[in-house]
């Protein structure tokens, strides 16, 4: 052993102490901590438990991306992320949520939209230079194979291919961002409409819902939790269908200046509404007094109590 100075001795003591603490922590983690790991401590539990037989059937999910040229590209859930590792299940989770059936409620649709937009982004990253037009979700199944064969089955020849869902990427082209960020209208002194979108287009059938997205910005914190109303009005100005609630199902009085919110709204179209053109109008009102906030153009000139968005064509049910 070479000569050890006082400083060396102190370092050595610190080293031994650190090694003891780390080793003891790892062992405590191994013997006494139940449930998930306390990362970055670890137990290296690969293949320790839950080893099952191979079985005689298997299934796998994959995405098939149809690009704007009509070519099909295949992706596994793990191909969507570069940082999460091949055994991570996040890709599968994201795909499932992007395709799971959404009820016709804003929250459910919003959740599905978030995942679909995220999925489009990931697909574009995983397939650079490819412009996806449609994303399909497939389940492949291989059955009655013998795992002792080599290979046990052919990946390219599944016994069953099931299309679980699909969507067109154009539907989410705005990425849930307003088409432009300049206010279209101001409502009172505190709120501005930044833009609106109609993912299903300007045509809607009787008995169905018209889906309207609108983006709002707080110029200053609103004094009240104003409600939004979206109205389909006929040429005489009479409302024939409408949907109301607080803006973005949120409490605007909690919004700091500059806060932006996306409102999703489904306007139910009555089955007996006459076919034809209707004006789509939006307004904000005080729920207690049922008084609308005055609508002005950004230059300050008055517009009325409801803002005109676009014209909607109502068609006979079953035609759309």
């Amino acid at each position: 052993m070479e000569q050890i100075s006082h400083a060396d001795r102190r370092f050595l003591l610190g080293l031994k102490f650190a090694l003891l603490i780390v080793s003891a922590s790892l062992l405590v983690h191994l013997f006494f901590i139940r449930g998930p790991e306390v990362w970055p401590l670890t137990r290296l539990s690969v293949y320790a438990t839950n080893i099952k037989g191979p079985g005689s059937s298997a299934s796998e999910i994959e995405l098939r991306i149809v690009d704007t040229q009509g070519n099909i590209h295949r992706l596994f859930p793990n191909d969507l992320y570069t940082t999460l590792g091949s055994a991570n299940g996040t890709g599968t989770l994201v795909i499932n949520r992007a395709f799971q059936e959404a009820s016709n409620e804003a929250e459910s649709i919003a959740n599905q939209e978030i995942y679909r937009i995220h999925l489009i982004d990931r697909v574009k990253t995983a397939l650079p230079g490819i412009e996806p037009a449609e994303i399909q979700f497939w389940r492949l199944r291989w059955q009655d194979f013998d795992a002792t064969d080599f290979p046990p089955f052919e990946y390219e020849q599944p016994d069953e291919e099931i299309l679980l869902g699909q969507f067109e990427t154009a539907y989410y082209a705005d990425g849930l961002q307003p088409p432009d960020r300049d206010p279209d209208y101001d409502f009172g002194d505190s709120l501005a409409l930044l833009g609106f979108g109609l993912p299903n287009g300007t045509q809607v059938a009787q008995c169905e819902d018209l889906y309207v997205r609108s983006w709002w910005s707080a110029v200053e914190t609103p004094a009240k939790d104003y409600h939004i109303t979206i109205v389909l009005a006929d040429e005489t100005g009479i409302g024939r269908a409408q949907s109301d609630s607080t803006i973005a199902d949120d409490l605007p009085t909690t919004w700091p200046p500059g806060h932006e919110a996306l409102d999703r709204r489904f306007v139910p179209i009555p089955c007996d509404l006459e076919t034809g053109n209707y004006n789509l109008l939006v307004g904000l009102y005080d729920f207690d007094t049922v008084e609308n906030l005055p609508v002005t153009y950004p230059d300050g000139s008055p517009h009325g109590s409801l803002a005109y968005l676009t014209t909607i064509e109502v068609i006979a049910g079953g035609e759309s």
Partner: protein
Amino acid sequence: MHILDSINHRIDRWLTAPVENAAGRMSLYRIVYVLFYLWVIHDRYHDELGLLPDDVWVPVRTMTWLTTRPSPEFFRIIEVGLVIGLFLLLIGYRVRTATIVVFAAGLTLGAFRMSFGKISHSDLFLTIYIPAIMIFSRWGSNYSLDAYLRRRRGEPSVSPNEASWRYAWPMHATIILLGVLFFSSGYLKLIKGQWLSDSQLISNLLLSHNVRAEQMNRFPNVLNPIIAATPLIYVPLRFIPLTFELFYPLAWINRRWRTLFVSTSLVFHAFNVFFLNVVFTPMIITYILFVDWQALYQRSRRYRPHNLFNLERVSSQVLVAASLLLVAVGAFLWYQDIFVRNLFGTYGLINGRLVWFVVAPLALLVQLKTIWQLLGDFSNTLRNQRRNKQRDLTLESNVT
């Protein structure tokens, strides 16, 4: 008290044992570490962590305090910080600070990466444990801008052949961590798994792997069904990983045992890659810490160009400024995904599986050589014992 003193003394002797070329091999390991790290992360784009939807966020226990997740920009900045740290380590400028940056960035990115779904252990040593250890090491003593500038200032320089424990202790610290972790893995198999009771376990593992590999359109192994049909192989095979992991602390005995366990670790991981498709490539960096890079470097002397750069005429300030500029440009190109990522990713020539085709045979050779040497040691011990016994008997008979 006497026993404790004795143990303490033995530990001190173990930790302070000289290691051949310690200063040079650790410094060269620093360079290998950086190149390996950059190769591993060249295709990782950490900004995606800021884009994941909120409800797939499953924080590890150490991250549950976080209430809001940072934006993609945050992750890009941390990634660039990591790359700057690695580039600084590569040239060896402000090595300790750079090591701290690499550790902090690796810890931050790792904590977020592990908070989405399944926890992976494969790069724990690469990103956390090794930089944490190296913060206190002297892996910048040679082959670094720091060392060059010190020499210019007239400060004493360290020979790369310096064998002092002051340079070598990170190897001891790492082998202790490996011993504890492998033991934990063996313990879990022994206590919670069916490794002792299920004679079909290896057979099931191999066949399941082939199914899973085909399912993922990857690489099933043609040998798996053959092994799975041969009880003579698969029944005893399950005891090998169990024994190897539980007895890993034997690597603490001496250098030869350490070499045996380290080379066996690589063979073990290679088996997992080829037969089970469990790819632990980032772990390679842990095991090659024990390679004598200095000896390899000296052996390669005749193939190396000499006096490629004559820096003597360049002032220290210019040298530092040029190096920092190089680091900044490199980090910027990395950020912009221009050229540098591909360069360190070897333009896809070497991937995480391919590297095992080189590592596995080398590790196997070292493993077999070490087993042979240990058997030689054992037979020498037996021969000496027999010789001593015979000598004692002769002495005894002479006395009588």
